[in-house]
């Protein structure tokens, strides 16, 4: 019957899977792009920058994935997954770029699945457990504001590939920040309980702000966003009291290793397998 056409033709014509399955047939996500590192750009530094930004995105996406089937409302299921998918997409492009310029030719999975916690360079805020919805929202607000401000800078980067990845990311991060800001205001203004939880989340996030501002010169933009949101929510600004050390320098909390153990479990259990 014609109405089951899609199912009936499943076993036919597998040469064109890329038409059907999202992500298939794109072994190299930067295919067709001129990947030469421009003169004057330090390839080692560029690769390290890409890996650090990819690690932030991958670890954040992993935490957002943990909300799946646990979100407070179906609309939030969809939105948190959407943000997680955007970040996962950013991570993939950035790893691909790193693999091209660091001389190893590694693919995205080599970075994600076959490095250990001490090799990751994400900021520590990204790896903290999900906490409650208030913590996840406040963290998302901080990280998306920070990343957005930095991506705006990067969209003028001398490496055209990183610049293009950043320009694409700006659109996504603008939405992430908007989503988080709206929820932060709702929660801050909502009920006694939501206000208490949001205030606690602000306090928990505060010690991790320092390393964000050391990494990139975007403190002014992030503080401006936080001020605007806390004012609208009727919340106090988080007190700036930076924790020593930095994820960018390879210092980790105890939470990254278990996160990676889960993320890497299947890939590492089946050496030589193809997925």
């Amino acid at each position, binding site marked *: *019957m014609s*109405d*089951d056409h*899609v*199912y*009936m033709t*499943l*076993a036919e014509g*597998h040469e064109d899977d890329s038409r*059907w*399955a*999202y*992500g*298939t047939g794109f072994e190299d996500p930067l295919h067709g792009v001129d990947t030469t590192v421009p003169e004057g750009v330090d390839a080692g530094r560029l690769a390290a920058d890409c890996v650090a930004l990819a690690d932030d995105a*991958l670890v954040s*996406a*992993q935490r957002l*994935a*943990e909300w*799946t*089937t*646990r*979100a*407070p*409302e*179906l*609309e*939030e*299921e*969809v939105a948190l*997954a*959407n943000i*997680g*998918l955007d970040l*996962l*997409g950013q*991570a*993939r492009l950035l*790893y691909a770029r790193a693999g091209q310029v660091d001389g190893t030719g590694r693919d995205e*999975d080599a970075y*994600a*699945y076959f490095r250990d916690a001490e090799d990751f360079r994400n900021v520590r805020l990204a790896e903290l457990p999900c906490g*409650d*919805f208030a913590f996840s929202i406040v963290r998302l607000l901080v990280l998306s504001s920070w990343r957005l401000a930095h991506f705006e800078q990067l969209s003028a980067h001398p490496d055209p590939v990183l610049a293009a990845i950043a320009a694409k990311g700006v659109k996504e991060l603008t939405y992430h920040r908007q989503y988080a800001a709206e929820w932060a*205001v*709702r*929660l801050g203004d*909502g*009920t006694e*309980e*939501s206000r208490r939880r949001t205030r606690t989340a602000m306090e928990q996030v505060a010690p991790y702000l320092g390393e964000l501002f050391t990494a990139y010169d975007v403190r002014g933009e992030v503080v401006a966003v936080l001020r605007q949101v806390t004012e609208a929510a009727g919340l106090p600004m988080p007190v700036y009291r930076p924790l020593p050390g930095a994820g960018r320098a390879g210092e980790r909390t105890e939470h990254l290793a278990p996160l990676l153990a*889960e*993320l890497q*479990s*299947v890939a590492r259990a*089946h050496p*030589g*397998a*193809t*997925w």
Partner: protein
Amino acid sequence: MTTTHSTEVPLQELQQQFDTTIARDQRVEPRDWMPDGYRKTLVRQIAQHAHSEIIGMQPEGEWITRAPSLRRKAILFAKVQDEAGHGLYLYSAAETLGADRADLTERLIEGRQKYSSIFNYPTPTFADVGVIGWFVDGAAICNQVPLCRSSYGPYARAMVRICKEESFHQRQGYELLMTMMRGTEAQRAMVQDSVNRWWWPSLMMFGPPDGDSPNSAASMAWKIKRHSNDELRQRFVDMTVPQAEKLGVTLPDPDLRWNEERGSNDFGTPDWEELKRVISGGGPCNAERVERRRSAHEEGAWVREAATAHAAKQAARAREGATAS
């Protein structure tokens, strides 16, 4: 709700208009008069379908954080997100019949409304992600494509969109299995093991045999449903057999063979006692599926309350602002 027009138009005439709409294969829309039984049947079916989408996120959702490549992670994450989206369309379609999403959710977590029995089976390996795509989404497509012509407009329209996405998911599942079958011996064994576990439960997705399906007759007459359970099950078997051959797996049914005379495959009888057991709560994962949904709902209560309180405060502030000026 069904009596809103009856002060002006006699019931008999309304019934006649409704019957004509059905007979002419036209669509019934939310504002049209409809018999109570039709409305109830639809709410029950659409709610069960919506619940199935939401509970159905769990078996595969387990694997998002562990997917073995970033590409598979993205595919799976997006698929499970689609299911949340399907749940939303369907709850919205149920709301056009006067149902309330919050109330339907309560019914689900209190066990007063059901969802597809298939989601009460566990997903112990990553191959299950592929086999669910191939079998479960495939069976869902067989069941749901005819629903795109269902007599109730909002349901039919939601199904068009859902079926497009389901067919995409099914392709992705089958493509994962093709890739795994080209991989290591351990991967091929993983796929076969998963096929063995999911085949019979997938055949049960079409419901009990026609002789034992209490709600089918009315649904067929009202054109909510277009084909019988057994018809759809046969169609699924016939379509799946060549796909299994191409993939290189064996379907675990010694009675499965081509019947030249019928132009169809003969196949064994699913264990209907198992289906009854799983439907009535005795499947391997019934308790944990509902419990997860319940805890997500309960843990999210303070968030939903905060959103409501904020909206009320905003409205009050707007009113005060208006009065002040």
